[in-house]
């Protein structure tokens, strides 16, 4: 296979420790020609790029950043399987490209020593020369090449330096014999590996040597699934025997691995790389003096977060506004080209509103990804996680949960996906389960509408800038966070108990963020969101439209209204043909009256639709929350996607479609004027408004998030659990808010 002809595509696997610039190198090599997907059944991103070197096609397979190739989960098994050519969905690997951080070869070569055991042609890329130089690390590259006996190329991936040389080396390496290094392991261990290889063959099992080695070292039993419990009983027993002998020989599994590999690393680096015995203070250290300081660091953290959220909302707002306008225009076009009826309603209220409902949040989500990418790329995110760890460890999580929860303020879907960075499975699950409690951007319109309509604009504590509406908004965000803390605490005490695992995280050297990398990450994650959320939100919006539209028969409407409509229609037609001087004014009046009647008809259609029937059916259950059947209706409609609530409230309170958005004063006025059926009592009081907000803050009203949780946990159990616990909390929270609020106002 190593002598591949030039007609065949050469497959290169890219591997390296985290924080070595692996993604930057991947982008520098493959440019825009990338394919991103997922390995089935696991939560590992499958990323492949294409490149051409001297008329030869290459496929570059990006493997997840890792410190070691000792798999402990199906996710970690992917890299090993890809490198061994055991996966059907990835071509066998011809060349392994291993990228290392030059300033920390001691640790990076640990992975290299594992990679070399795959016996493929291997190329080593020495990245981050600048950091190494600043730290005073000296590397004799020629000597390293001789020691390792593989091609070694110096690169500076973020500046594009050395990329050409690396490409040439890759092209040559494909035609070279693979590296056959001496094993780092002691004699006794190698003998046991050879013994096990024989046993495996006797059981007609063709296991690659690397896997045999791993089986011997895998005392945790993570690799057991590759063996068959019944058929491979013999191999299993042989492994146990071998471990006992190794124990006696003084090289116990798994401890022998670290000993052997670090021994090999220091042999390779002896006289080849050196670092000053006293650490030189770098720029990074000076910045850290402030940013990780308990007081200054915390202040800086709060400022960074405030600045980020402010900019996300301010910068994204005009874009969202434009998208809304565009939706309105599209709806207008659709209305003009279709006749009144189900098709028009589907296009306008189902399709355009459904797609628009997703698109409107895109600017905010892209902006948040943009800022997160900057913070990650410059190295600040690890410091933020360090600062937050003090807080998070009190409730049993670690600082690593910070980024997923932060992303969830834009949208829980990328937040749930970002939880992949947490290695501890229990912590990861807990983080996923509480991520939807963070107030995402889809809740914002509900808060905005309720606050603008019902929360009086009065200063608090006599402060001019601290006013009740702002405090209420803050309170809603705080409610989500506080509830998450309690939920984490309870989950950790009950169904997901366990000690907090040791928290260890690298604090990478600060660097200027690269515009290319930041944009790339923003677009990558943003479009991943569009693909995953877009299709589902769109589909459920159409379903909601259908239950709110049908049966749609004229018999549902009171005859008086229908008569009024046709009477107005006649009046308008006759006025249009009239030459009377007052005709124009009368026409305008009639048109206004007609649109009010149309709105009432739309309201009656909704009231008698399947959705309306459901709303009336649940009214007894939502009455204690201070809601009438209309709010119940709008809430049911918003279960698949919460942003739908605004539009539904508009229709159900007989307001024309085009006048309905969160900032629209007419919707606010309509809600203020809404009365309980058959009485003069207003529906909305301050406790009711608060109760609606609390419900939306806590409820799991997002089918796309639940679908993402299902995918990421690979089980239906956890999305169901999330839905049940959040909906129960929402109901109870809302009930308490309304009852206490009413009692307090009365007292």
């Amino acid at each position, binding site marked *: 296979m190593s002598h591949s002809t030039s007609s065949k595509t050469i497959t290169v696997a890219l591997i390296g420790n985290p924080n070595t610039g692996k993604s930057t190198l991947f982008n520098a090599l493959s440019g825009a020609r990338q394919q991103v997907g997922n390995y089935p059944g696991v939560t590992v991103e499958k990323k492949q790029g294409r490149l051409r070197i001297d008329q030869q096609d290459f496929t570059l397979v990006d493997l997840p950043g890792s*410190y*070691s190739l*000792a798999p*402990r989960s199906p996710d970690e098994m992917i890299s090993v399987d890809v490198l061994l050519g055991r996966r059907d969905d990835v071509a066998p690997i011809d060349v392994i490209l291993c990228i290392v*951080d030059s*300033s*920390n070869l*001691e*640790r990076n070569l*640990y992975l290299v020593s594992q990679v070399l055991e795959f016996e493929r042609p291997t190329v080593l890329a020495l990245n981050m020369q600048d950091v190494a130089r600043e*730290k005073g*690390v000296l590397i004799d590259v020629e000597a390293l090449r001789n020691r390792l006996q593989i091609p070694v190329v110096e690169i500076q991936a973020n500046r594009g330096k050395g990329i050409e040389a690396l490409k040439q080396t890759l092209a040559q390496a494909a035609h070279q014999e693979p590296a056959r290094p001496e094993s780092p392991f002691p004699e006794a261990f190698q003998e046991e590996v050879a013994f096990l290889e024989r046993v495996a063959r006797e059981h007609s099992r063709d296991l690659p040597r690397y896997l045999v080695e791993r089986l011997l070292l895998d*005392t*945790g039993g993570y690799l057991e699934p590759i063996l068959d419990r019944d058929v491979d009983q013999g191999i299993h027993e042989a492994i146990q025997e071998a471990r006992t002998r190794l124990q006696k020989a003084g090289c116990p599994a*798994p*401890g022998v*691995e*670290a000993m052997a590999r*670090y021994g090999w690393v220091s042999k390779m680096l002896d006289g080849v790389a050196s*670092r000053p015995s006293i*650490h030189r203070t770098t720029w*990074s*250290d000076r910045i*850290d003096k402030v940013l*990780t300081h*308990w007081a200054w660091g915390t202040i800086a953290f709060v400022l960074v977060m405030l600045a980020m959220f402010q900019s996300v909302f301010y910068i994204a707002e005009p874009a969202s506004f434009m998208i809304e306008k565009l939706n309105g225009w599209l709806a207008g076009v659709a209305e003009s080209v279709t006749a009144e009826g189900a098709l028009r309603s589907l296009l306008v209220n189902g399709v355009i509103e459904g797609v628009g409902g997703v698109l409107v949040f895109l600017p905010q989500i892209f902006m948040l990804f943009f800022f997160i990418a900057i913070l990650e790329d410059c190295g600040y995110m*690890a410091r933020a996680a*360090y600062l937050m*760890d*003090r807080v998070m*460890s009190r409730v049993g999580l*670690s*600082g690593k949960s910070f980024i997923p929860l932060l992303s969830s303020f834009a949208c829980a879907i990328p937040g749930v996906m970002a939880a992949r960075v947490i*290695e501890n499975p229990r912590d990861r699950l807990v983080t996923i389960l509480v991520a939807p409690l963070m107030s995402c951007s889809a809740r914002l319109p509900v808060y905005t509408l309720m606050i603008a309509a019902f929360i009086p604009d009065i200063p608090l504590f006599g402060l001019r800038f601290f006013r009740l509406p702002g405090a209420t908004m803050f309170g809603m965000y705080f409610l989500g966070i506080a509830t998450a803390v309690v939920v984490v605490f309870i989950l950790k005490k009950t169904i997901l108990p366990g*000690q*907090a*695992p*040791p*928290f*260890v*995280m*690298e*604090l*990478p050297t600060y660097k200027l963020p690269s515009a290319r990398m930041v944009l790339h990450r923003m677009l990558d994650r943003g479009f991943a969101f569009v693909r995953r959320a877009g299709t589902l939100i769109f589909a459920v919006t159409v379903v909601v439209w259908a239950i709110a539209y049908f049966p749609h028969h004229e018999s549902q409407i009171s005859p008086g209204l229908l008569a009024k409509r046709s009477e107005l229609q006649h009046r308008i037609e006759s006025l249009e043909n009239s030459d009377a001087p007052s005709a124009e004014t009368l026409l305008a009046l009639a048109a206004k009256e007609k649109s009010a009647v149309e709105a009432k008809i739309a309201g009656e259609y909704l009231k008698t639709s399947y959705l309306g029937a459901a709303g009336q059916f649940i009214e007894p259950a939502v009455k204690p929350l201070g809601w009438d059947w209309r709010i119940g209706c709008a809430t049911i409609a918003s279960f698949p996607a919460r942003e739908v609530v605004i539009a539904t409230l508009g229709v159900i309170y007989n307001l024309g479609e085009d006048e309905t958005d969160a900032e629209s004063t007419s919707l606010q006025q309509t809600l203020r004027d809404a009365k309980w059926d058959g009485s003069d009592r207003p529906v909305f009081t301050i406790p009711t408004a608060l109760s609606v907000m609390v419900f939306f803050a806590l409820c799991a009203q997002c089918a796309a998030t639940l679908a993402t949780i299902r995918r990421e946990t690979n089980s239906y159990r956890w999305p169901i659990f999330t839905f049940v616990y959040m909906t129960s909390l929402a109901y109870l929270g809302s009930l308490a808010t309304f009852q206490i609020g009413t009692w307090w106002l009365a007292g």
Partner: protein
Amino acid sequence: MIPLQLLTAGASGRVTQLMGGVEEVRRMEELGLRAGAAVEMVQGGNPCIIRLAGNKVCFRRTDALHVLVEESQ
């Protein structure tokens, strides 16, 4: 021999022993925190920041893992 977190800021030492579950110890070793590694305490507290082979690493102690070091003079 003292626990790692007892090093004062600026002090250095050499790791002598990792005590804890097999898997925890293995993860630490792969990250470079292993017997024989030189460490320097950059900032105390919990989590603390240590320097390990020229890189900064933040580390929170738990009951699941104890890192013992020999302080160098």
